[in-house]
């Protein structure tokens, strides 16, 4: 399933260019460049958005993530709450709908 980023409003978070509504009674003359409000965020945020969209659109990246986590565990750089995870897996095995 493709995720429409416009629906999520992620694109809108990155850059907003809009014309201001014409306010009646405003007698100030504006220069052409002042006709637009412009908000732009840093490149880091854009990169973060790309990552989020990637993960949402491509579930196969989850297996890459699992491989990364496995490597981190082997090197001792990743901490998992083994007891909580064991509890969850056992609960699923006993109460999970699939095993009925």
């Amino acid at each position, binding site marked *: 399933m493709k995720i429409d980023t416009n629906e999520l409003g992620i694109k809108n978070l990155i850059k907003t260019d809009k014309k201001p509504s014409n306010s009646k009674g405003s007698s100030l003359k504006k220069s052409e460049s002042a006709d637009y409000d412009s908000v732009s965020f840093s490149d880091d945020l854009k990169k973060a958005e790309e990552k989020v969209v990637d993960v949402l659109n491509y579930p196969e990246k989850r*297996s890459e993530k*699992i491989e990364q986590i496995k490597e981190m565990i082997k090197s001792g750089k990743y901490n*998992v709450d*083994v*007891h909580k995870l*064991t*509890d969850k897996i056992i609960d699923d095995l006993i109460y999970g*709908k*699939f*095993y009925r």
Partner: protein
Amino acid sequence: MRNELAKKTIPSLLSLLSQEYQFYKELEQLLIEERDCIVNMQNEELTNINFKKESLLLNILEIKNEREEILNQISNYLNIKKDDISISFLLKTFPEYEKDFAEFKIKFKKIGQKIKSLNDINKHILNSSLNFIKSSLNIFYQNSNRAVYTNFGKVRVNKSYMAKSSFSSKI
């Protein structure tokens, strides 16, 4: 399409269930070893077992992910919700594999009960051990602060110790 499911997809699913069951057997063995380590206070071995458990649990999660993909295919074909697919459902829908699914249903139920029982015992004895260590440390801490002997053989009573009573310490 049904033939393709019955010939390829269902055997793949059965193979995954077999692997998953083997992982649960390994988990059962690790929990038995963990219990022995807690009882015999073999801390290094306990750490090793935790590493093995982490790796095993991730393998189980991976198998579950693969299973979900197969269940997606089955749900698309049968036009039902994926969450409605259970071993009992598959057993009825694919009678040619009835025996295999029936076996897995019993196996998973049994191993689930065994693992849960072992895990509960381990949690209980681990908590008891931790409480024992905490209370021992508390007693040691109280006694070690009772008095200090100076160079000249005089006893200097530790005032901070006097402020505490044995009832105020957490056991």
